[in-house]
């Protein structure tokens, strides 16, 4: 069979995969346009603006940097989703709420520890506690730990009450149940913390690295912790017994079961690892953006789905790369379309990926 492939002409390949060619052409077109814009050249055809225009290098650089930061946050948030998607075999529509709950518990804890008057107001985030990495490091660290612990607790509780009785159900039934979980958790948060958008951080100190990039300490924390968590999970999946068991379950659950893998235990550990990471991701998401609202996880859910599917479900590296690419699309799309439509551009990319290459860039496992 390999022989045939080597003898394929370009014409045959185009005929076999026309959509990939189209995607390639569109991408090339956008890149060419971007280069022309950077040069400040405008290409006209019959007096119509076809390509080019102008954009400053520094403006582009800002977009790329913003995109990277958003991308790391999305990638980090995507790891947990990717794990549950591949190992437990369903698209968890409540994933956004795990982010939100982690962030709310984390920042309430941090606000209380940071001290000051009105403990109730602080706990409910009614007044901005002005958290900042360099001035309130202990409070922020405690918040981070609480974000992870509380989300693990929530994930285990929901698994026990909702998903465990439905272990044998099909992926789509679990998906529908997870929509119920999403509504339940999101609006429980709204019931407790109300529906406002609250500021939680003070103005963060700016750090300049190598005279090149200026980042806030919060963005830097997100980048460092995000990349560290991703590498940690990748190592765990690759080299530990638990990781092997997880990958075995993702490939074929029945086979894993007959091979003596304690499936129920691995499921619980998946929720622990995935939940902890997701809580941390939600916390860092809010640390970077500075504000928190009961629906921020839900609003970003499709963005995270996009990253996970683009990277390939089940692949940690995929979630990472997918996240960064999605972040870049979200920010760079401003070069071409109004900024209130960049999210729509991300969803277009999501749809395109699902149609052209549903296994994603890193060829994740196939799900139901």
């Amino acid at each position, binding site marked *: 069979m390999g022989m045939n492939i080597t003898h394929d002409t370009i014409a045959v390949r185009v005929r076999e995969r026309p959509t990939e060619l189209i995607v390639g052409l569109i991408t090339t077109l956008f890149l060419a346009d971007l280069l022309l814009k950077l040069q400040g050249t405008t290409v006209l055809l019959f007096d119509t603006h076809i390509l080019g225009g102008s954009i400053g290098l520094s403006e582009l650089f800002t977009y790329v940097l913003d995109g990277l930061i958003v991308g790391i946050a999305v990638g980090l948030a995507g790891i947990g989703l990717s794990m549950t998607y591949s190992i437990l075999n*369903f*698209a968890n529509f409540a994933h956004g709420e795990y982010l939100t709950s982690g962030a709310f518990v984390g920042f309430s804890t941090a606000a209380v520890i940071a001290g000051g008057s009105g403990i*109730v107001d602080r*706990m*409910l985030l*009614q007044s901005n506690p002005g958290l900042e990495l360099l001035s309130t490091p202990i409070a922020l660290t405690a918040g981070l730990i609480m974000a992870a612990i509380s989300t693990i607790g929530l994930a285990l509780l929901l698994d026990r009450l*909702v998903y465990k*009785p*439905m272990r044998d*159900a099909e*992926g*789509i*039934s*679990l*998906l*529908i*149940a997870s*929509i*119920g*979980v*999403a*509504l*339940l*958790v*999101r*609006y*429980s948060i*709204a*019931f*407790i*913390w*109300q*529906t406002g958008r609250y500021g939680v951080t003070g103005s963060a100190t700016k750090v300049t690295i190598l005279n090149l990039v200026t980042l806030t300490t919060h963005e830097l924390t997100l980048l460092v912790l995000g990349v560290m968590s991703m590498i940690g999970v990748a190592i765990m999946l690759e080299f530990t017994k638990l990781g092997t068991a997880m990958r075995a379950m993702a490939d074929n659950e029945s086979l894993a079961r007959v091979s003596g893998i304690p499936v129920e235990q691995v499921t619980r550990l998946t929720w622990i690892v995935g939940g902890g990471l997701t809580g941390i991701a939600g916390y860092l998401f809010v640390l970077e953006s500075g504000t928190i609202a009961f629906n921020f996880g839900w609003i970003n859910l*499709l963005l995270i*789905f*996009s990253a996970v*599917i683009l990277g390939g479900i089940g692949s940690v590296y995929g979630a990472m790369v997918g996240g960064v690419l999605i972040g870049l699309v979200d920010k760079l799309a401003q070069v071409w*379309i*109004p900024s*209130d*439509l960049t*999210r*729509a551009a991300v*969803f*277009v990319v*999501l*749809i395109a990926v*699902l*149609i052209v290459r*549903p296994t994603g860039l890193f060829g994740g496992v196939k*799900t*139901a």
Partner: protein
Amino acid sequence: MSTSDFRSRLTGLPDALYVFGLMAGLYAVFTGLTVLLNFELSGIVNTLRAITYFSAVYAMVVLALNLHWGYTGLFNLGVAGFMAVGVYTMAIVSGPTNPGPAEIPGLGMNLWVGVVAGVVMAALVGVLASLPALRLEADYLAIVTLALSEIIRLVLNSTLLQEVTVGGATFGTGGATGLTVQNNPQTPVTAFFQSGPGSALTDVAMGIGIDRPTVVEGIGYAIVLVVIVGLLFVFIRRIATSPFGRVLKAIREDQVVASALGKDTRQFKIIIFGVGCGLMGLAGILWYGSDGYINPLSFRPNITFYVFVALIIGGAGSNTGSIIGGSIFASVLFYLPQFLEQNSTPVLDGIQSVLGGSTATPQTIIDAGGALAGLDLTAFLAYCFANISSLRFIGVGLILIYLMQRRPDGLFGHRIETAASIPLTRGDTNE
């Protein structure tokens, strides 16, 4: 009498009786509530009008979704988007060319042209979306359709198409500020009761104490909607019992078998996706169009989940179940909380007169918890009333989880129609 006995006895009844029985029960409950709250006659009638209206519009969308999910097994999470396409197209096509100041003009066509255009546009968007999307498996289809619905909402919300001029005609979506729908499906009904033959009816209603003409017009519109639901039911019944419908059910049961039997399953799926989306567009027009004002915020995915919950309550696959699920959801889960919120002051006063305590609303959950700990149930309930929209979603979530765990068939899903033209069971059909 055991449950199965009860059920088999119920199964013998004609379907229309279920619907009438349910509506009669709902009317009785809401009449009781409104009488307790000392409503005037027009208020009572208006409440019954509201549950009829919401039941009818929900029943319409649920019936359309049942074609996708119940009959064909297509998991379409884009309901809100298709409704938006329908109603926005209608509003743009039949909007007046020279509206008042600060209003966005439309294309100035006849209302019915607009309605047809809206339905056709929703169906077209559905077909276009289905061409690539239907190759995907269920959960991917869910994500794609949800993303599509968000793309539609974001585009409508964007300044990009707020007001555009193409070939001399100016029109637009109004962006985030929304669009006034001067020419909407309720307009002819209103005209009928204000100046048409119906004005005599209005006079009669005024005579017996329904002193607001808008209530009479609303009742007229609700009756029109109920008739449309009936027609839709018959239409879908015909699709379902036709050879075409049998193939749809076969696709739901096992797509591979259906295509092995020589059916072009892809083509069937595309057609039914288009038909369902067109009907969603129609429902969007009749529902949101009649408000006289549309706004992208109305088309967030929550509305899709509402419709899904209604379908699952009724039981996917059953048309009667769709109508019943839609009515129960619309009246009990959707309208009742809203009704209680609007009347929270008298309701809380009533509770206070029984339980004592304070009706002052606690500002935070901690205060509310404190009130509860101090056995001041009234104050705690006041907090709940202030947050009733959150509680409604919590309830919807809990019901969805419960149904998926314990009763995935809903109320009528056990009657799911098989893909055969002859009964597959012999003799005794009781369970």
